[in-house]
């Protein structure tokens, strides 16, 4: 009984330390737990994988900021690696000012791994363009009028990759990586209005909101959080930071499940032994 009361009164900082240990230990000593690829990730992989080399380009929009990099950057890198490895042309852009550096960094990181591909012909970085939904609509009307120059200041007319890109008809699929509802704007305008295929990579917080679009076929595929990134890394056979983090994720989840169960057991088991006021508010006073 004493232990159960201790659980109810436990300082929340003990939980913080336990979670930190649960994350650090697998990072130092990897367990290599299996990663099972889900249907929603495989659908996006298949949609890209079936594209022929040097076909219509894939449009990648990096709509996130540094606060969600641990979740979203691995999936951006994985999708870019997939496209680069299959020599599928890629156009990278961002609707977020804070995503400009991240988008360029992701593209340049992957581009270094594929020296056989050249900028302007196989991939291009269009930079940040203010306007958001108006930009997405603008691409549907005239890509080069919407992006008169790339992110480095080169006129779009001088980029061979954009030579045949007039609008969404010339985009094989667009993939939006975001920690916001930006993917819904792409669905609304790029998919519903112009019929462009849309895939999404979102933070885990956003994933449950995105499922209805997957079910309705408005999304081609969905990567949700770190697990989505790890699954994609497994599919392309290039383990990255998401794969490394999945052991820590699993152990931390087990710890949290155990803590929730223990907390509930302690709450119900000690209910009779507590004062009525305590029963009503067991977590007051800064305890966990």
């Amino acid at each position, binding site marked *: 009984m004493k232990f159960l009361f201790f659980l109810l009164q436990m300082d929340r900082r003990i939980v913080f330390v336990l979670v930190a240990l649960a994350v650090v230990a697998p990072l130092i000593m990897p367990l290599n737990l299996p990663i099972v690829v889900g249907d929603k990730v495989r659908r996006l992989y298949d949609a890209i994988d079936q594209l022929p080399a040097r076909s219509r380009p894939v449009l990648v929009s990096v709509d996130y900021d540094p606060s969600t990099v641990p*979740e979203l950057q691995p999936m951006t890198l994985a999708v870019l690696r997939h496209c680069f490895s299959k020599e599928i042309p890629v156009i990278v852009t961002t609707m977020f*000012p804070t995503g400009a550096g991240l988008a360029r960094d992701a593209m340049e990181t992957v581009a270094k791994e594929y020296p056989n591909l050249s900028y302007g012909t196989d991939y291009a970085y269009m930079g940040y363009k203010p306007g958001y939904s*108006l930009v997405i609509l603008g691409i549907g009307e005239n890509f080069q009028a919407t992006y008169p120059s790339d992110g480095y200041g080169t006129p779009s007319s001088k980029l061979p990759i954009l030579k045949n890109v007039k609008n969404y008809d010339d985009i094989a699929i667009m993939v939006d990586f975001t920690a916001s509802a930006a993917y819904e704007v792409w669905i609304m*305008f790029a998919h519903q209005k112009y019929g462009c295929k849309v895939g999404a990579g979102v933070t885990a*917080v956003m994933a449950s909101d995105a499922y209805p679009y997957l079910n309705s076929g*408005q999304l081609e595929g969905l990567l949700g*959080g770190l697990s989505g990134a790890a699954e994609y890394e497994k599919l392309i056979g290039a383990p990255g930071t998401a794969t490394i983090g999945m052991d820590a994720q699993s152990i931390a989840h087990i710890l949290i499940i155990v803590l929730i169960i223990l907390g509930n057991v302690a709450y119900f088991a000690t209910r009779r032994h507590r004062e009525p006021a305590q029963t009503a508010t067991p977590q007051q006073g800064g305890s966990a």
Partner: protein
Amino acid sequence: MTGMELFWTWVAAFLTLSIYSFLYKDNPFYKFAEHLVVGVSVGYIFTINWHQGLHPYLFNPLAASWEHPYNLLRVIPLILGLLFLLRISRKYNWLSRFTIALVMGIGCGTAIPPTIETRIIQQTKASMINIIDQPSLWAGFCAVTILVGTISTLIYFFFSKEHKGILGGTARLGIVFLMVGFGASFGYTVMARISLLIGRLNFLINDWVIGTWNFIAG
């Protein structure tokens, strides 16, 4: 890793630890890092908008309006944008309403039709069952679950009649679906927060600790 990279890694590590120190209790290091993030973010966003927004799409075309007189039309959005700034004036803040009205009008006009199509019509279509077309028994079960879940949850939010009898039972079923939905959202939220922690701890272990060790060891 170069010396400069190591220096910035130490700065990043210091700021990460300063933010996490809030878990123990509020302190000056946390306050410093918090204010730094806000200041740097505002400065960064302004700079990006200046260089990748205002310059290429406003100032440069206006500067070239001698050759392309059509570019002078960009003065109109410039004036409308400047009217926004009059929000800070007590006397002339009413002028900013023109810009707000324009933005709202364009926003509503472009967003409402696709929103109805995307979030209501297409989602309603996806909730309807076609038992014959289901590829497997499991897919059929999922389709039925979605239909029942959608209807019962909508009935829970139907407040024009007291929730009694069949209506009450269906509404209670709706609560079950809502709870499952909240549980899924909570689980995903835990996953997201742990992912961010993994990202920072991965940085502290590999980039900061091991990176510094490798730099010292040569």
